[in-house]
Structures are given as C-alpha cells and as structure tokens.
C-alpha cells in the first residue's frame, strides 16, 4: 500500500448496518480530512470497493445479507482489491471469527464498544 500524500484525501469505505454509528464515524473522520463512503448491508461490497477504490476498509462482522467474513474472503480473493487493508469490527465473544479474519488477511480489528479516538488511531496505524 502506497502512502498517501497530505494533499490527497484519504478514502475509507465503512460497511456497517448501524446507520447512526456509521454516520457518526463518517462525521468524526471527515473532521480529520478523511472521505468516508458508507455501505449499510453486506450486499455488493466488492463492487463498491472497485468503484470507490478506498485506501482502507472498515468492515463489521455482523451484517445483513452477507456476513463480514464472507465479504473479507471475497475481497482478499480479488486481484484488484486484495491489497487494500481491512479492519474488522466485532463484538465480544466473536474471537474465533476474528482469528479466522486474520487468516483471511485482515489488517487489524476493533472490538465494539469502541472509541472514535481508538478507531482513528488504528486507521492511521493500518495505513502507515
């Protein structure tokens, strides 16, 4: 992953079914100059990634239509997008799924409840 120059806006795709949380994260990250694309279901994520070409993907494990693990597997199996770092979001008790996500190539994970400060720090760490 190439580093993004300060003039170039960072782009993140956030896949999250809790719409209020997704919009709050969008607001918070936009304050840091990051452009956030939102997706509320697990359907059509790969197409959106190809279309928007984000620098990083935030992916919730539990999603309607298609779960986060299947999406991750799909992303990592696609030549065009497989190098985009993916941070998984999980709740307590999903450790086995997180283990699996790391096997599929996730860059990091954040457990819910999370703080937006922590989220931002992990995003920057994954992009460094």
């Amino acid at each position, binding site marked *: 992953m190439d580093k993004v120059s300060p003039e170039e806006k960072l782009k993140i795709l956030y896949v999250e079914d*809790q719409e*209020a*949380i997704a*919009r*709050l994260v969008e*607001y*918070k990250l936009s*304050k840091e100059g990051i452009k956030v694309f939102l997706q509320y279901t697990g359907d059509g994520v790969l197409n959106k990634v190809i279309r928007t070409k984000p620098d990083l993907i935030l992916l919730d494990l539990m999603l309607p239509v298609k779960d986060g693990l299947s999406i991750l597997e799909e992303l990592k199996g696609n030549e065009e997008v497989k190098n985009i770092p993916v941070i998984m979001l999980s709740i307590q008790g999903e450790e086995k799924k997180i283990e699996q996500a790391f096997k599929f190539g996730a860059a990091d994970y954040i457990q*819910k*409840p*999370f*703080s*937006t*400060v*922590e989220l931002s720090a992990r995003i920057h760490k994954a992009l460094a």
Partner: protein
Amino acid sequence: MIEFLSQTGIVISVVFILLTFIYLLLLFIFLIRIFERIRLKKEKNFIRRWERKIFEYINEDYNPHELIKLFPKSSYKYLLHHLRSYQLTLKGEDKERIQKFVNETPLYDYLIKNLKSLFIKKLIFGAYYLGLAESENAKFIIRKKLKTYNELAYITCALGLARINDVDSINSIFNEASKFKYLSKDTLQSILLEFNESVCKYLLKRMEHEKSPMFKSVIIAVLRHFKFAPAAPNILKYLFNRESTPIVIESLKYFGEVKYPEAVAAIRFYLMNSKPEVRAEAIKAALKIGEPSLEERVWSLIYNHDRNVKVTAAESSYYFSNQSREKLKSLAYSIPNTMESSIARMIISQKIIHLN
C-alpha cells in the same frame, strides 16, 4: 324447503362473519403499516434535523445545556431512542459526552418522572434509559422499583442497576429474582455481566450463603467470565462436595478458564462421572488446564460409550499434544473402520479445513 332455507341462512351468516373478520384483519394490518410508516417518517425527520447537532455536541462543539434547548420536550423520546445506539456502541469520551447530556439536562428529570410513574411501560422506559446513561443519582429509586411483581420491570431495573454498577444491590437482585418462577438462568446471567468486575467479591460473598443451585451456577458463570481467581478455593469445594450437575458443570468451566492447578484431582475424578455432560465438560477443563497427567485419561474417553464424550475427547486430543494428535491420526486411518476411527477422521478433516 324451510330446512333448506334455514341451512342456507346459516351458511350465509358464517360466510358473512368470516368475510367481516378478514376485512377487519386487513384493516388492522393496514393501520399498523400506516402507523409504522408515520413513526419511521418522524424518526427520519428527527434524524435529518438533529443528528448533525448531536455529532457536533459529541465532538465538543456544544455544551449539553445549549444542545437540549434545541429539542422540544415532545421529541425527548425520539432523542433518547436515537442516543441509545451511541451508548451501546461507543466507549470512552464519546460515550461519556452522551451520558453527560442525559444526566445533566432536563432529560434526566424526564426519565425520573417516567421511572416514578405508576404505569409499568413508563417505569421500564425510565429504568432502561437511566441505566444506559449510568445515572448514579437514580440508583436509589431504581432499587425501590426493583421490588415489583412485573418480570419485565424487574429485569429492566436489575439491568439498570448493573449498568450503573450498583454492587450494593446484588443481594436485592437475587432476592427479588426468586419471586419469578420463569426467570431464566441466561437472563439473570446477562444482567450480572453488565456489572464491571468489581462485582466479583460481592458475588463470592453471596455464593457462600446461596441456597438456590440455579443462582449458584449463575454466580460461578459470572466469576468465570471475569476470570476471578480468588473464588477458586470456594468453587473447588463444590466439586469435592459433589453438588448438583449444573453447579459441577459451571465449576468445571470455571477451572478451565482460570487454569487453577489445584483442581486437577477433581477434574480427574469427574472424567469418570456417570453423566456424559459432566464427563465432556471435565475433558474440556483438562485440555484448557493442559495438565499432562490427564492426557492419557482424556484419550481413553474416545472409547467411551457416549458419542458426545467421544467427540469431545477426540477434539481435545487433537490439541492436547503432538503425541495425542499423531495417535488420533493413526486411529483415523486404522482398520477396521470403527465409530472411533470415523470420529477421529471427522475431527482431523474439520481441523484441516479450518486451517486452510
């Protein structure tokens, strides 16, 4: 002729009643959908109008007293509902900002008014949102409301007290719980898990005098969740005293989690217990503790008469050591094809797919 007419009349009446019933049912469904649409539209409008202000507040561009002035009292219910997802998903400063907003503005008085209401629905609403906001000042009123005969009101009040981490209410939570015949173990457990780990020493005290096996096993489950090792000597006594099956099972799970070496002798004993569910749990505990002296006995349980015990023993043997894993592989491809070798093949196959 008269008989025919009277029979036709009955049929027509029945058809008429059925059609009226179907019509009313359709009307009812239609009205529900209309109301739901109106509610969703109101909520959408609310979000469109106020969400940005809430974000600005969380980002510290607003003070809570200024923010609340923007909201009419009639919108408090929507506002609290909307704040709920932030409170459940965020932590740290963001969550504290939301809690401050609820606790230091007229929203607090609004919730207290609901909590004090004689209507159960309002009481539940107040207790739920005050608990979510961890309103320390509300705990005394919630404690009083805990003494209800309505199960849902009890659950909400207990949950509220747990979220406030009111550890002094532990005994009341258990005492009041005993009133409800159908209160499940899972419900009580999920309430107690909302406390933070400081609750453990209070639970330990309660456990010493607790008579109910269900409550005792719930306490052990919560102590296991928090990996509270100081409870180990007390829980070990339950294994030696051969308490009821749910307590023994929870105790074995606990020892597996806290990896208490003093429990090895008891685990060895329970590997031979007459109940298959106890044997299976003892196998899991033996694996988690990783005591080498139990390895051979766990392996021998692959030949146990109970299928679940066989599978648990085979799966544990796969992880116990390289030696056990090799033995399992040999068994898997041994001749003749037995139930044990099939189970061994199944476990190895599962693990290989899992690794791939």
